[in-house]
């Protein structure tokens, strides 16, 4: 769907022909309201005064005509919380008797995780998380005027769905771009990252959790495995490896660690 991806700098003007326009038939059908809405993703802002759409970060402008959305793709930067993201946070402390302060990236203000936002938690049974522990949570509230809020349970079903404290293992830092690619549904085809699959092919047994804030948690029975996974991820990130290069790098890494 995305054929042309022009490079943009902040403040550039966007070629109006790139902006997806609602088709005439859709305007008549029942879905007209939904189809006529253009969704702006990260990196773009809408100037209400002139009606123009202006990029705010350098990157490639990606237009998805089907979903009628646009965003600017870029690799790095610092994580800014937005609702629905799954993140790995570090608990700072428990405060006020009913919430945890959790840090999503160093030197930023803490996010709030209520004690009751866990599966099966009640006033009598609260989760015990020591300062420095890691949690896998979803962002439930994020706007620029408030500290972000997290939850470890799905509000609709009351189930954790894999969220909650991360015990053991270790966590590695990756760039925001790589974290996004790892979280894609089809990470090998669309994200061009298959390094975790290759490591599994070589016989390593481990489990991972990926945080949109640039953190990957890895747990395995063997320390060597965890070190290998961490090094493979960091090499993929720093050296910008393609899928073939990732396969070769994994083979080389396993051999050198034997």
């Amino acid at each position, binding site marked *: 769907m995305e054929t042309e991806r022009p490079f943009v700098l902040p403040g550039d003007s966007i070629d109006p022909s790139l902006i997806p326009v609602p088709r005439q038939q859709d305007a008549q059908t029942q879905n007209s309201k939904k189809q006529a809405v253009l969704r702006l993703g990260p990196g773009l802002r809408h100037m209400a005064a002139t009606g123009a759409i202006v990029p705010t970060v350098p990157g490639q402008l990606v237009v998805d005509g089907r979903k009628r959305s646009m965003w600017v793709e870029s690799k790095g930067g610092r994580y800014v919380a937005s609702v629905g993201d799954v993140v790995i946070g*570090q608990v700072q402390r428990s405060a006020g008797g009913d919430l945890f302060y959790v840090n999503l990236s*160093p*030197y930023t203000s803490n996010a709030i995780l209520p004690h009751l936002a866990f599966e099966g938690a009640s006033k009598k049974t609260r989760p015990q998380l*020591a300062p*420095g*522990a*890691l949690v896998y949570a979803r962002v439930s509230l994020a706007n620029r005027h408030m500290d972000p809020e997290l939850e470890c349970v799905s509000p609709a079903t009351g189930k954790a769905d894999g969220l909650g404290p*991360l*015990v*053991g*293992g*270790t*966590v590695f830092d990756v760039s925001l771009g790589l974290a996004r690619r790892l979280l894609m549904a089809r990470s090998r085809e669309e994200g061009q990252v298959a390094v975790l699959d290759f490591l599994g092919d070589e016989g390593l047994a481990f489990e991972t959790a990926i945080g949109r804030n640039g953190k990957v*948690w890895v747990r395995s029975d063997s*320390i*060597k495995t*965890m*070190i290998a996974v*961490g*090094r493979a991820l960091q090499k993929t990130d720093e050296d910008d490896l393609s899928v073939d290069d990732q396969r070769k790098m994994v083979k080389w890494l396993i051999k*050198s*660690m034997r």
Partner: protein
Amino acid sequence: MPREAEPSLNEKQFVIQALQSNLRLDGRKFDQYRPLEVSFGEQYGVVEVKLGKTRILAKASAEVTVPYVDRPLDGIFTIATELSPMASPAFEVNRPTETEVLLSRLLEKTVRRSGALDTESLCLVAGQKCWHVRVDVHILSHDGDLIDAACFATVASLRHFRKPDTSIENGVLTVYTPAEREPVPLGWLHSPFCVTWSFYGDEGEIAVLDATWLEEAVRVGSCTISLNRHGEICQIAKLGGTPVEALSLLQCTSIALVRVKEFSALLDKKLAEDAKRRDRGGLLAELSAENDR
């Protein structure tokens, strides 16, 4: 107060477990340094040192000034280090942290007090004029082991630096500009380097060289040994921390000597390459009045 970013419990436990299984996170051996890269700038005395992700920039400069009253025959030599928010947002401007104080003290003892630079050669007119040589060490990026990298950078920049040539006729001092006469190197006596060991385990039994920021956060003790390639020790600093067996400290010192010889050879090589690069026409060899030591 600046908030220090601490690693998570999981990371800390993982590093300790790995060390107990004889493994480091980046696959290095316990007594192995990260690759050390040295690059000199266009101007004399500017050097950038990269030790893994730690980056240090050192610049040497000289100015004519009045000597200290109690030392009329010596020049002045100062080393200024500063940890700025560039190294990490945890550091604030003009607010020295413990790391910074320790770093500048160790550099003082290693480079200044050991007499690496001959301060008598900096005197111009006894009691009235002398050179004030100053090295500014800027920490650009902090990923552990600042002391070793900063000391290397200081020594490299002082050896690379050239001060303006001077002459005295009938009591009148003339300082020549770089356009009039080629600048001359400083009077250098010996090159000290620092080697920092970090200790882990209940009795400090695991010793590791060149710790990264994460490894430094979990260590229980550390020891910095400063020596030159002849095996002359300038200082040993083990400031608190878990007590360590004397025998293992001796072992650390002998491995440190091996590393220092490697550093010394690397620095000599890089300085020679830089001199060759500048001296395309072969003229500089004739201008030099340096004594071979």
